């Protein structure tokens, strides 16, 4: 049936290649902002839109297509495949990249450390490599795309390479990415199952013993977890995301993290075929831990991009929670529920792509306008930057998980799927998993806290620095980019039924089942047996009607007189910006309540200090407790080995001699 249609896979391939071409075209005039920045990025955005459209079309078609390219290894040319799962993530890529590219077209300046042409190349290679990851149907193509993605994004992260911290961030990023990639590679090594065919088709057909299969699953989880920022493999994320230019942070957070989710879904449901239920407990537990860890750390950050980065960790945690839940359900023969949990994961991936990209772009505009990332030096920007403030508010509310925006929908779906966890026919597990719902609820509420802090400190209140008075709103292209993403947030929030039905082919592909969808186009009712429903449009209309009616009535019966005066503040005389809560202050309750999560380093002034200074630094216990000791061990081991290489030729001869004698002895013994 697909053969008769003109085919979306070649179209996708062409679009991905077009990205590459755009990137290379950037080298033609590498120094020209107008050419490489303004023009090519807009073209790239159009390609992204086309890709999103193709993906939607393919998703609706619901069929699977594959092809083979004449490049790659001799026995392993690049295999490509477009199926509902990859279509869904291509849609995510295209939709988010469109907004980010438009924004970038207006964002990149000449002074950003790297020539615009090079940026353009790396940026579009990054996009194209993500496309390749999503289209790949063999391990080699997948890994090439995967590592290329890491590499190109590394260069983007280190755009401002003259700053030592940014270099350090780039280093740890690429290191973790590489180690993770090795783990994934090894997982593929298991998955090929002795057939030495590294195509995904062969892996689907391979039969693995339970131990091997579990090994592959866990390796894949480690690899993809490292890319996604799953605790304790998250350490690179809060360093790299803030270091990157904002549009890149947006792509990293919004899109690249999702490729890890894609990979995990691909391996667990597609390549392994029949995940065992207890496998799901690992991502479930890790996801819950990650979510809580991320959001708690987000709440105490003072750098706006770090805050968002930690919030990304939280959301990744939620994604893996949903994924784990889906595996548990699927493994215990409850495919319909697995489909529900999977739906929550997919939906949240889309949501997070839209809202986190939006927020990172918003911080980019703020950064350009003020030169500040530190929350302690921002404030009151809603007056100077109304566009950015307005559009960012949408993202903020969405990320806080408030109805009727999109963040709430996926949260709702996730909680709904948790509601069935007590039916899992495994003793004790049915008791433990519902507790996960409590963690999810806590994280969702904390996310609200974080977002109020984020928005309130940056945009509301009084400017904390006098220089902020010169802040300017963003350019037109940036507005368009932000607007596109905000519109996505709204659309995803208000039309859940449509999104769910579009995602149904994916859940059907992976679990063989699908969530039921009620007949009403405005009503999301995935579990008909339970008569639960959510209709954001109705909801919004009712709310809007009430508000409108209130405004109308108030004006009708009373008046609309307004006087302006100095803030009252309980009659306190002078109101200065320094009297507002700082970012540290806003995080104080969280610091107290979740004290055990942090390694806090405080510097408190004594009462007699002439110039009192209060400083607080919050460190990651995992970094201090796991990574630093490992580095220490390796260094000590290196010292030992280096001691053997001591410069004396007699010793070296002795090594040769000993080796010879040892090997001879071995041979004699056998």
């Amino acid at each position: 049936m697909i053969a008769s249609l003109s085919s979306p896979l070649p179209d996708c391939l062409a679009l991905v290649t077009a990205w590459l071409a755009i990137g290379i075209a950037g080298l033609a005039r590498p120094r020209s902002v107008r050419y490489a920045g303004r023009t090519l990025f807009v073209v790239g955005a159009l390609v992204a839109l086309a890709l999103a459209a193709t993906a939607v079309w393919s998703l609706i078609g619901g069929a699977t297509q594959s092809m083979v390219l004449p490049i790659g290894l001799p026995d392993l040319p690049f295999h490509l495949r477009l199926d509902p799962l990859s279509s869904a993530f291509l849609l995510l890529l295209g939709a988010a990249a469109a907004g980010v590219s438009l924004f970038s077209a207006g964002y990149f300046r000449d002074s950003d450390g790297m020539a615009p042409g090079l940026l353009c190349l790396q940026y579009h290679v990054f996009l194209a490599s993500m496309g390749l990851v999503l289209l790949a149907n063999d391990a080699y193509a997948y890994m090439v795309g995967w590592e290329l993605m890491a590499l190109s994004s590394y260069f983007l992260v280190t755009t401002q390479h003259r700053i030592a911290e940014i270099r350090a961030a780039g280093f740890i990023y690429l290191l973790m990415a590489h180690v993770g990639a090795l783990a994934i590679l090894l997982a593929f090594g298991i998955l090929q199952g002795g057939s030495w065919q590294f195509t995904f088709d062969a892996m689907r057909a391979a039969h693995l013993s339970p131990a091997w299969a579990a090994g592959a699953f866990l390796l894949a989880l480690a690899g993809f977890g490292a890319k996604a920022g799953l605790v304790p493999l998250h350490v690179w994320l809060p360093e790299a995301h803030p270091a990157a230019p904002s549009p890149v942070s947006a792509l990293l957070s919004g899109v690249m993290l999702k490729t890890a989710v894609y990979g995990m879904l691909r391996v667990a449901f597609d390549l392994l075929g029949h995940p065992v239920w207890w496998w799901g407990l690992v991502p479930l537990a890790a996801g819950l831990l990650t979510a809580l860890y991320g959001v708690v750390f987000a709440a105490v950050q003072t750098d706006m991009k770090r805050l968002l980065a930690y919030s990304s960790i939280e959301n990744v945690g939620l994604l893996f929670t949903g994924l784990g839940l889906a595996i548990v359900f699927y493994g215990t023969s409850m495919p319909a529920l697995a489909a529900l949990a999977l739906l929550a994961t997919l939906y949240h991936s889309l949501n997070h792509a839209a809202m986190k990209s939006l927020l990172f772009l918003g911080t980019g505009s703020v950064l350009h306008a003020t030169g500040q990332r530190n929350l302690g030096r921002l404030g009151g920007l809603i007056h100077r930057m109304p566009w950015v403030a307005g559009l960012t508010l949408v993202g903020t509310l969405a990320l806080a998980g408030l109805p009727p925006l999109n963040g709430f929908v996926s949260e709702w779906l996730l909680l709904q799927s948790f509601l069935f966890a007590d039916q899992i026919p495994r003793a004790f597990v049915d008791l433990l998993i519902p507790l996960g719902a409590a963690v999810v609820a806590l994280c969702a509420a904390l996310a609200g806290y974080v977002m109020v802090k984020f928005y309130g400190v940056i945009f509301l209140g009084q400017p904390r620095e006098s220089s902020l008075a010169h802040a300017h709103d963003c350019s037109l292209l940036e507005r368009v980019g932000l607007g596109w993403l905000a519109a996505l947030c709204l659309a995803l929030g208000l039309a859940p039924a449509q999104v769910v039905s579009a995602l149904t082919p994916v859940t059907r592909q992976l679990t063989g089942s699908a969530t039921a969808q009620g007949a009403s186009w405005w009503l999301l009712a995935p579990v008909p047996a339970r008569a639960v429903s959510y209709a954001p449009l109705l909801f919004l209309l009712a709310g809007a009607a009430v508000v409108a009616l209130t405004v109308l009535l108030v004006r009708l019966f009373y008046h609309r007189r307004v006087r302006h005066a100095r803030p009252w503040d309980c009659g306190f005389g002078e109101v200065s910006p320094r009297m507002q809560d700082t970012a540290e202050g806003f995080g104080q309750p969280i610091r107290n309540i979740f004290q055990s999560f942090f390694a806090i380093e405080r510097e408190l002034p004594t009462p007699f200090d002439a110039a009192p200074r209060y400083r607080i630094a919050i460190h990651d216990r995992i970094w201090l407790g796991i990574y630093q000791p490992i580095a220490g061990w390796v260094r000590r081991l290196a010292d030992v080995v280096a001691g053997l290489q001591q410069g004396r030729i007699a010793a070296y001869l002795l090594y040769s001699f000993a080796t010879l004698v040892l090997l001879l002895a071995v041979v004699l013994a056998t």
Partner: protein
Amino acid sequence: MSSSAAREKVVTDIPLDQQLLNACAALLLLLSFAMLSQRRIVSLVSLLAVQGAVLAAATLLIAWRTGEGHLYFSAALTIALKVAFLPWLLHRLIRRLQVYWDTEPLLNISATMLTGIVIVVFAFGLAQPITHLASTATRDAIGIAVAVVLLAFLMMITRRKAMSQVIGFLSMENGLFFGAMSATYGMPMVVELGVALDVLVAVLVLGVFFFQIREQFDSLDLHHLERLSERR
């Protein structure tokens, strides 16, 4: 065990040439031990020359016994290179560079000797499977060849002077040559020539080296050459 077996054979029906050959082998081993214990570099060179001479004698013996023409050539080469040229060159170098004594070796002499004996036992054990298979008259000498090689190795490890290390290296070459001789009556001619050429060039290069080292450090003591290391 090998020595006792050999002795038994000596008493019985071993032909003279083979007895002579075994004597050569024993001599070689003895010379190796002598080199291991010798601290005077001039004497070391002399011992090396003697070792070369014994080697040449053994080669001639084998050549006479088997009638293989190329072995005569080999013997001639050995005499020219290892008895005449190399010792001459080394003596010249010693005189030019004024290095007559090695300093105290890294391992004291008696310990070195003890280790040497262990090595000889090991080498004989090692040679067992080869000896069993060899059809040559000289097969019992294979173990000795291995021992000579390993003893030269040991000597290189324990010495502190560049010069004595080189002598150890050449002694090792001798052991190898003897091994080839006793196991297979020598290698094909092309190879033999190549090996000889290599040894020659090696010694020439070494000579150049000595002058360079001497020029740089005013001594040939190896402790100058222990800077490049991974220790900090």
